[in-house]
């Protein structure tokens, strides 16, 4: 594989960090302040796009490493998997920034300067996670993301948000420490190698098909559990999901980009990295870890959907839906066949676009009517037709209907499950889709049909209702042509190929 030494990944990480002092400096001039956010977001996307153009041709973009600690460097490597995540985060940041401006100004929120500053830090950390070339780099950005998200969770500074913030910190700090212990142990087991490498670093496969284990299998399993606690909290694998519904007290743009895309996907992405690039699917199978992980994923998928069904608060319902959907990615990693991995990786993108649409809609309803209570949404579809149209598209996508992006990820996941002789998992996927329909469609039916009002247009101002339209359109375009924009599906295929067949 061709390697291009180029510092673009580093610049892509740093560009939003550089915007932070400017945002703080122009804190009391709102329009100027927002200019910095958009400038950084557009720059970031441009950088990531230019990297993606190189990576989709099959090469890697590697920044010059910076020595960090004895034996390990800060490595930023843009590989197909990382580029997918980076593209998702940086493109959605632009849309979310438009929405943030609309939402925060319409809601007359306090501390907007701090809000935009911490948002920019979060995006830097997310890109760092996407491009991290080894575990220690990954961990550093992972913890920065944890800390930088906290002020956004407690943005409202009321009792509910402070309690939500505490819960968030408790979950994520414990996870972080487990992760750190696992990383140090891996460094020891793999003899000082922590670099992500497709196919895994821990075991070498002997010609006879046997695996040469670096240590006691029990210790390898224990370390894996520590890893999964580390990434599982952010990926909201049950029973580690408790913080996510509580963190919904944050302003809706935070919930949409961070708690539906950046933070939670960092967890799911971490899971893919650990499974595909540290342990490797073969070793997972050898140690019996894939069934273990799949069991947790399936339980999370089903129970998450049931909890969503039981919630009458729109944001809570979306949060539990996120919990459930994230485990599709974990499940794909656990199955470990090529199709399943393609499905899982594509789901990172598809779910990102669909769920952010749904959150945007929830936020625009809140901005207009100050409610998240589901029974009160009755008849609103006729007053806010654009918002609810976007909501419908997002819901269809989550439920896995064809023509929307979510269908492709589920199809590939199911295909992968069948190829890996785990047909039972297909049943779980189907059941989950039915539950998705059950918790989304009553909302849509009530909103459009349970009212005799004439259709009117009572949307908020444009920055609030345009973003969900954009993301919903993207979800549909990705459903029709999964290689639209920059060839997401190709990149997913490249990444999955690497994981299954090794780097080569």
């Amino acid at each position, binding site marked *: 594989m061709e390697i291009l030494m180029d510092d673009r990944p580093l610049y892509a990480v740093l560009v939003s960090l550089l915007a932070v002092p400017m945002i703080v400096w122009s804190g009391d001039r709102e329009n100027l302040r927002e200019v910095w956010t958009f400038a950084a977001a557009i720059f970031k996307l441009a950088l990531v796009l230019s990297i993606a153009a190189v990576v989709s041709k099959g090469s890697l973009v590697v920044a010059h490493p*910076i*020595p*960090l*600690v*004895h*034996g390990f460097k800060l490595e930023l490597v843009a590989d197909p998997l990382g580029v997918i995540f980076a593209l998702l985060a940086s493109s959605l940041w632009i849309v979310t920034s438009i929405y943030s401006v609309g939402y925060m100004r319409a809601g007359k929120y306090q501390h907007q300067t701090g809000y935009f500053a911490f948002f920019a830090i979060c995006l830097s950390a997310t890109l760092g996670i996407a491009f991290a070339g080894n575990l*220690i780099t990954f*961990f*550093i950005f992972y*913890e*920065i993301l944890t*800390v930088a998200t906290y*002020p956004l969770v*407690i943005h409202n*500074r*009321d*009792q509910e948000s*402070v309690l939500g*913030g*505490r819960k968030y*910190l408790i979950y994520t*700090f*414990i996870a972080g*420490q*487990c992760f*750190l*212990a696992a990383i*140090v*142990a891996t*460094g*020891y087991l793999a003899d*000082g190698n922590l670099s992500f490498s497709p196919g895994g670093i821990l075991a070498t496969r002997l010609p006879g098909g046997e695996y040469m284990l670096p240590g006691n299998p029990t210790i390898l399993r224990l370390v894996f559990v520590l890893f999964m606690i580390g990434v599982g909290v952010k990926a909201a694998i049950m029973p580690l999901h408790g913080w996510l519904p509580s963190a919904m007290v944050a302003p809706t743009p935070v919930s949409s980009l961070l708690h539906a895309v950046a933070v939670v996907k960092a967890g799911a992405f971490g899971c893919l990295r650990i499974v595909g690039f540290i342990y490797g699917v073969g070793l997972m199978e050898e140690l019996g870890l894939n069934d273990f992980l799949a069991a947790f994923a399936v339980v999370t998928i089903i129970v998450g959907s049931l909890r969503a069904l039981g919630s009458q608060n729109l944001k809570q319902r979306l949060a539990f839906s996120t919990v459930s959907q994230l485990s599709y990615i974990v499940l794909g990693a656990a199955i470990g066949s090529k199709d399943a991995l393609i499905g899982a990786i594509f789901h990172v993108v598809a779910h990102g676009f669909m769920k952010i649409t749904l959150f945007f809609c929830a936020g625009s309803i809140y901005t207009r009517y100050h409610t998240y209570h589901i029974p009160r949404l009755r008849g609103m579809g006729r007053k806010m037709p654009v918002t609810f149209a976007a909501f419908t598209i997002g819901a269809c996508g989550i439920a896995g209907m064809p023509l929307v992006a979510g269908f492709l990820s589920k199809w590939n996941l199911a295909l992968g499950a069948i190829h890996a002789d785990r047909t039972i998992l297909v049943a779980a996927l189907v059941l989950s889709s039915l539950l998705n329909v059950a918790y989304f469609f009553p909302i849509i039916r009530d909103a459009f049909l349970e009212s005799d009002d004439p259709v009117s247009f009572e949307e908020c101002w444009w920055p609030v209702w345009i973003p969900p339209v954009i993301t919903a359109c993207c979800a549909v375009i990705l459903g029709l042509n999964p290689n639209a924009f920059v060839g997401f599906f190709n990149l997913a295929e490249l990444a999955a190929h690497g994981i299954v067949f090794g780097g080569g």
Partner: protein
Amino acid sequence: MRHLPALIIAIPLASAWIVPLTSLVSAWLARLISITALMFTTLACYGSLKHAMTLPGMRWSYTFGGWEASSHGGIPIGIEHVIDPVSGALATLVAALALLTVLYSGPQIPLRRQVRSGVYHGLLLTLTTGLLGMTITGDLFNLYVFLEITALSAYALLAKTGNRATLASLRYILVGTVAATFYLIGLGHLYAVTGTLNMADLSVRLSQVQDSRLIGFALILITLALLTKMAVFPFHSWQSDVYTYAPPMVIPFIAGTMSKVVAYTLFRLFYTICFVDGSVAHHVARQVLDVVGVVAAISLVAGSVLAIAQKDVRRMLAYSSTSQISAVALGLAIGNASALIGAFTLAANHAFAKACLFVAVGNFHHRSGAQNIEYLDRLGIRMPLTGIAFTIAALSIMGLPPTGGFFGKWYLLSGAVEKRAWGYVLAIVVGSLLSAVYFARVIERLYVGSFDGTGHSPSRGGTPRKFSKENLPFLMVAPMAILVIFTILVGFYNYDLVSGLLQYMLPAGVEWKS
């Protein structure tokens, strides 16, 4: 400058006499002299360190008056100062923190009736002399003398605010004297079997001693004394009251340096003196050090637990120090290259960050009178610089990347894993989680305040004053800014720190793996 190592002691010692006398004439002049003296001391330390690093073996031995200090030239009666990367760096750190503390305390002295400028500066200089002496001396008995100089000036300084401070200081005297006596008895035993007190000489002679019980007894006594002085749990009880009631202006220095210097003595005792391959002393010392490791691991967790239970910020920071210095001791006890580098990084990081925290807390107190956590409501917003300094230093102690605390923890954990000491791994992880708990609680107060609307709940510590509208004096902000910048630099330039300085501190025989 051939005599730099002598000046390191001579400058602060001489000015400790001059300053109180000068202050009878002019308080301003006395202050100027102490600041100048500490500046030159810092430069002398740094210069000696730089010079020592250029010498073969990176060891600069300075003998007073040319008297031979080791016994191969006859009777060892000379006094020796040794500058090597460890002692040079620590001395520089001590002198620099002393300088910052003198600057920081300037605006506060006139506010306190009980503190007289001349005496205060004199005592601070004596304290600095003692700590520097402990750091650079090559002789265990001189170390004892300097230990007592340090302790005596600390007792006097800490009692300066009267009442509770006096009582706390009395308790410190009692505990400290017992510890010093233990040290002396242990030292007596070592002298009895070897006939020398010079460290390098002792190391050679001790390696020939076969009496493991006697060496063990001496080592246990000295170690106990040092652990008490470091305030490692369960020998920590004197520290919390002292840090809580003592004059806030001197605590940054004491909290930043004193326990590090004692930890350094522990390092010298084991790694310079006892660890000679194949000797009985090595074997015995290794066993004692293993026990120290267990105690340190327990203390690491216990200190954090105690810190969580506190309502007073300074008391909380005191227990946090117990936990942090235990992490340093744990690194020394594990003893492989990674763990030792971890201990050095953590010590440096803690020196800057904890001093910075105490300065920040002093600043909060200065403007609002708040010392209890519940009185800190939203002070981080009203005093943004101090709030940011506190937060950054706290994140560093918590060990979150990319701060120095994280890298220290990383090396320490690597060391523990290399040694397959899973219990230590657990202790480090749990300790740092608990530190996140007590710091997050304070930071939440600083920025969000009491969200439940009940406002202040009175408890001991008194009602705080009305929030002062006057901004902090420049001299109270600048040292804090310098400290927080150093805290950040320890993290960002950690690799350069390790490859440029810390790796040369590793004792002979301890090598990086691969």
